[in-house]
C-alpha cells in the first residue's frame, strides 16, 4: 500500500506539470479553435529563461540554501519562467497567427504555421545554448530531503513543489476566467467571437491576453520540469505531446478538463505500468508507460468522444 502511495505521489507531481502545459493548449483552442503546436516550445523557453536568471542569481553548482533562499529561488524561477513563456507566446501570436487571421487564412495554415514555429524555436534554442543535454539548474536544495514522511510514504521537495504551485496556479486561473472581466471576455470570444465583438469586446486583445496567460502557465511548468529533470532544446516535444493528449482527455477547450486530464494522465502513467506495486515483476512494466497512456486516451475517447468533461471553454467555467 505504501508503495502504491509513493507511485501516486510521483504521478500527481508529473500530472501537475502536464496539467499546467495542457491549460495552454486548451485556452488557445477555446478562443481560436487552434491547436497551438508551438506551445511545447513556449514551455521550453520558460525553462531556459528561468535557468538563465537563476544561474545568474544563485550561480552554477551546488549551493544548498536556507529555507527562505529555497522559497526565493522557487518564486524567482516560477516568475521568470512565466514571464519568458508569456513573452514568447505573445510574440508567437503576433508573428505566426495574427497575420494569418487578418487575411482570413484557412485553419490548416495556422497549424502549419504552428508546427513551423515549433521547429524554429527548438532549433533556435539549440543554436543559442548548446544541443547537449547538460543544462542543469543549480542544486539549491537537497533533493533527498523528505518534506512529509508518513509510514513508508514520503514526499520530496522536487515532488511537492510542482503539485502545490500547479494547484495554486490552477485555482487562480479558474477564478480569473470565471470571475473577472478579462475572463468574461475570454469566455465570450470562445463561445461566439462575432457576437462578442458586437458586444464591444476587443477580440485581438483578448486573444493576445489568452496567449499570455497560457504562455505564463507553460513557462512556469518549464521551470518546474527543468528543476525536476533537465533543460534542453528538445525537452518540449514529449511533455508537449503528453499535455496535448491530457487536454484532449479532459475535453479540449475545457479548463477544468485540462486540469483533470493532466492529473489523470500523470497518475495513470505512474500507477498502471508499475502494478503490482512493490513486487519484483511488474505486470506491464515501465517500458510500456507511453503505450499505457495512449491506450487509456483511446479508450476514453471511444466512450466519451469529447473527453472526460466535454469540449467548449464558454460553458465550463
Amino acid at each position, binding site marked *: 500500500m505504501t*508503495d502504491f502511495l*509513493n*507511485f501516486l505521489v*510521483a504521478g500527481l*507531481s*508529473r500530472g501537475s506539470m502536464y496539467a499546467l502545459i495542457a491549460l495552454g493548449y486548451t485556452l488557445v483552442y477555446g478562443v481560436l*479553435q*487552434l*491547436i497551438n*503546436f508551438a506551445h511545447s516550445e513556449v514551455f521550453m523557453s520558460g525553462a531556459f529563461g528561468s535557468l538563465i536568471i537563476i544561474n545568474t542569481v544563485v550561480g552554477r*553548482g*551546488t549551493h544548498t540554501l536556507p529555507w527562505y533562499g529555497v522559497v526565493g529561488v522557487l518564486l524567482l524561477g516560477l516568475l521568470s519562467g512565466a514571464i519568458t513563456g508569456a513573452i514568447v507566446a505573445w510574440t508567437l501570436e503576433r508573428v505566426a497567427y495574427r497575420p494569418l487571421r487578418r487575411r482570413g487564412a484557412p*485553419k*490548416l495554415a495556422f*497549424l*502549419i504555421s504552428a*508546427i513551423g514555429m*515549433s*521547429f524554429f524555436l527548438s*532549433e533556435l534554442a*539549440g543554436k543559442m545554448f548548446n*544541443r*547537449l*543535454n*547538460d543544462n*542543469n539548474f543549480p*542544486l539549491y536544495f537537497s*533533493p*533527498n530531503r*523528505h518534506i512529509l514522511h508518513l509510514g513508508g510514504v*514520503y514526499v*520530496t521537495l522536487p*515532488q511537492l513543489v510542482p503539485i502545490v504551485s500547479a494547484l495554486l496556479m490552477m485555482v487562480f486561473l479558474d477564478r480569473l476566467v470565471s470571475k473577472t472581466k478579462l475572463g468574461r471576455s475570454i469566455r465570450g470570444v470562445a463561445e461566439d467571437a462575432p457576437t462578442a465583438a458586437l458586444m464591444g469586446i476587443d477580440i485581438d486583445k483578448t486573444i493576445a491576453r489568452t496567449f499570455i496567460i497560457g504562455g505564463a502557465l507553460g513557462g512556469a511548468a518549464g521551470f518546474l*520540469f527543468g528543476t*525536476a*529533470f*533537465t533543460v*534542453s532544446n528538445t525537452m518540449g516535444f*514529449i*511533455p508537449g*505531446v503528453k499535455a*496535448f493528449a491530457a487536454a*484532449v482527455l479532459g475535453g*479540449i*477547450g475545457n479548463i477544468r478538463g485540462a486540469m483533470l486530464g493532466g492529473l489523470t494522465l500523470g497518475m495513470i*502513467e*505512474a500507477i498502471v*505500468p*508499475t502494478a503490482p*506495486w*512493490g513486487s*519484483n*515483476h*511488474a505486470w506491464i*512494466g*515501465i*517500458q510500456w*508507460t*507511453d503505450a499505457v497512456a495512449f491506450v487509456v486516451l483511446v479508450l476514453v475517447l471511444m466512450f466519451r468522444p469529447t473527453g472526460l468533461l466535454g*469540449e467548449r471553454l464558454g460553458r465550463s467555467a
Partner: protein
Amino acid sequence: MRTRSIAHIGALSLIGALALAGCGSSNSSTATGGLTSGSSGTGGTSGGTYTIGFEGPLSGTNAQLGINEVNGVTLAVNQANAAGNLGFTVKLVKSDDQGDPAKAPAAASKIIQNTNVMGVIGPSFSGATLAVAKNYGSAGITIVNPSASDGTIQTHHFPTWHRIFPNDYAEGPAAGDFLARHAKKVFVVNDLSAYGAGVAGAVAKELKKKGVTVVTQGVDAKTTDYGPISQTIVNSGAQAMFYGGYDAQGALFAKALSAAGYKGIAMAGNGVKDSVFETGAGAAGVGWYFSCGCQDATVAPSAKQFTADYKAAFKTDPGTYSSEAYDATNILLAAIKKAAAAGTVTRSAVNDAVNQTDYQGITGHITFSADGDLPVGEGTVNLFQDKNQKIVGLGDITKAK
C-alpha cells in the same frame, strides 16, 4: 460539428509533426572541405589527397560521445598531415547521424557517395552500426569502429567491419563479476537500445551464473522521469543496480535514484561514462561505477603524449573513446599508406590492409580476427568511478576489490 472537424485536423497534423520530427534535421556538418577533392574518383595518384569519413552523433542528446571521437580523429589526421610522411594528404569528412539508427543510412550515404573516401571511423553507436555496416560493406569502404560495443555485431560478418576494443560481451561479464562480489540481489535496467540491452543482458547472464538474484526492466531512452523505476528499485531491496544506456539518460536516472533514497551500489556501462553524466547528475552521480573496455587517457601512461596534444588542440581533456578514435584513425591511415606503397589505393586494397593490421596503439595491441572483431580475450576492461563529480579510472576491473 465545426469544432470536431478541427480537432481531427489537429490529430492529423500531430501525426504529421511526429513524422517530421522523426525524419527531420538529419542534416550533417561538413568538415574542412571534405568534398573538394572528389574529382579523383578512382583513388588518385600518389602524392594526392585521400579522404576518410567519420560517422557519429555530432548533435542531439548524445553528441558528447561523437565530439570526443571526432576530436580524436581530427587530431590524428592533423598530426599525420603535419608530419608529412604519408606521401599523401588526408582530408576528413564528418557526417552526423545523431546516434540514431533511423538517421544513420542518410549519414552513411553522404560518406559513401564521396568517391574519394577510403575508409570510415564509426559509426559511434551500435544501433547505427547495425543499420549501415552493410551499406559501407557493399560500397567496399572499410569500417574501423572505435566505440560501438554491442556484442552481436561481429556475428553478422559484415564484409568490411572492424572493431578495436573489447565488446559488451567482454565488458558485461566483467561488470557482472564485479557486482557479484558486492551484492546478492541486483536490479538490471536497460534503455531498450541495441547497446543498452546488449550490455545489460550480458551483465544479467553473468550475475545469474554466479547465483545472484537478478531483476531486469527496460526503460525507453526517451523517458525523462525516472521516478517510477527508481521507486521500483528501492522497493525491490536490491543491493546493487546496473544501467545499460547512455550518458544523458544515466544522469537523469542518477538524480531520480538519489531522490528516491537509493543507497546501494550503482553501476553503468561505457555509454554513461562521460562528462555529460558528471555535470548532469552532479552530486547524485558521485559513487557510480562504470565498466568500460576503454582506457582513461588522462591517466594511462601510454597516452600521455596524446593527452597533452589533445588538450592543446581542443582545450579539454580527452573524453570516453577519444583515444580509441585516435588509434582507429591511425590504423586506417597506416592501411592507406600500405596500399599506396603496394600500388594503387582503392577501397578494397585499403580494406585488405586493415584486415592485416598489427598495431601497437595508445589503447593497446590491436589485431583483427576473421569476423573483424578484436580477438576474444584481448583487451582490458577497466573500472571507473565518479568521485566528486569527476570520473576517474580505477584500473583493471578483474583486480578491483
